């Protein structure tokens, strides 16, 4: 099913990073934290409580879903992006792309 985002609002940076991290492959909580750290080059370090607060909201909005991984001994619960979550991430990337374009033009940085 194709999801179209009509009421896209700016997403917070942690949410963008979590969705981006899950866009390539499903992950469990600890791997997600590590990847968010790496994606942001150490700038965004989520605490465990913040991560699970965000996961809770994303699950409620059905942007991600939870499933049980069978091949790991410790971290069984993993998360993956849903079609709706992917559409939201696309919409956010489009918004940021547009913003970047406008700022680049206004600052006269084109081709810099």
């Amino acid at each position: 099913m194709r999801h179209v985002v009509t009421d896209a609002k700016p997403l917070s940076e942690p949410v963008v990073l979590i969705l981006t991290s899950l866009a390539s492959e499903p992950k469990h909580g600890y791997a997600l934290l590590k990847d968010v750290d790496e994606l942001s080059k150490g700038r965004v370090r989520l605490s465990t409580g913040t991560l699970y607060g965000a996961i809770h909201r994303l699950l409620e909005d059905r942007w991600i879903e939870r499933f049980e991984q069978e091949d790991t001994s410790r971290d069984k619960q993993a998360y993956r992006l849903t079609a709706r979550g992917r559409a939201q991430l696309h919409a956010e990337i489009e918004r940021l792309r547009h913003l970047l374009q406008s700022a680049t033009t206004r600052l006269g940085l084109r081709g810099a």
Partner: protein
Amino acid sequence: MRVSDFYRGLLLLYPADFRRQFSEEIVSVFEQRARDQATSGEPAFFAVEFVSIVKGASTMWLTKILSVKSELVPPEAPDTAGSFLTLAELAERRSTAIKNMVASIAKHDFINARQYSDEEVRLKRLIQNVGSADSVAESGTAW
């Protein structure tokens, strides 16, 4: 008392449904990070972790309380502002108000959250008024 026992105790601040869903997982991730921290030596690690639990739990409780409060508000005099909208439009606006309220709470913007909560209550009342007016009109009987 071990640090992870203290952390597990802090998780009791969260609503029960959240604890049932995530408690074990959160403690497991916290323990893995605490081991990492022992080698990397991040000084504020434990303080940040503990504070985030307290903040996260209060936000979650506030969200819950606000949603229950909107269900408990008693009906007042009929509100006619916005009654030119259809039921579907009113329902859509109410849904947007709820989303905005939750988003504001998540950002700890409680002033706006309160405004969205009031808006949601107003729209809910309007929906009830429009709904009852429609059912009277459909039945053709005024009691």
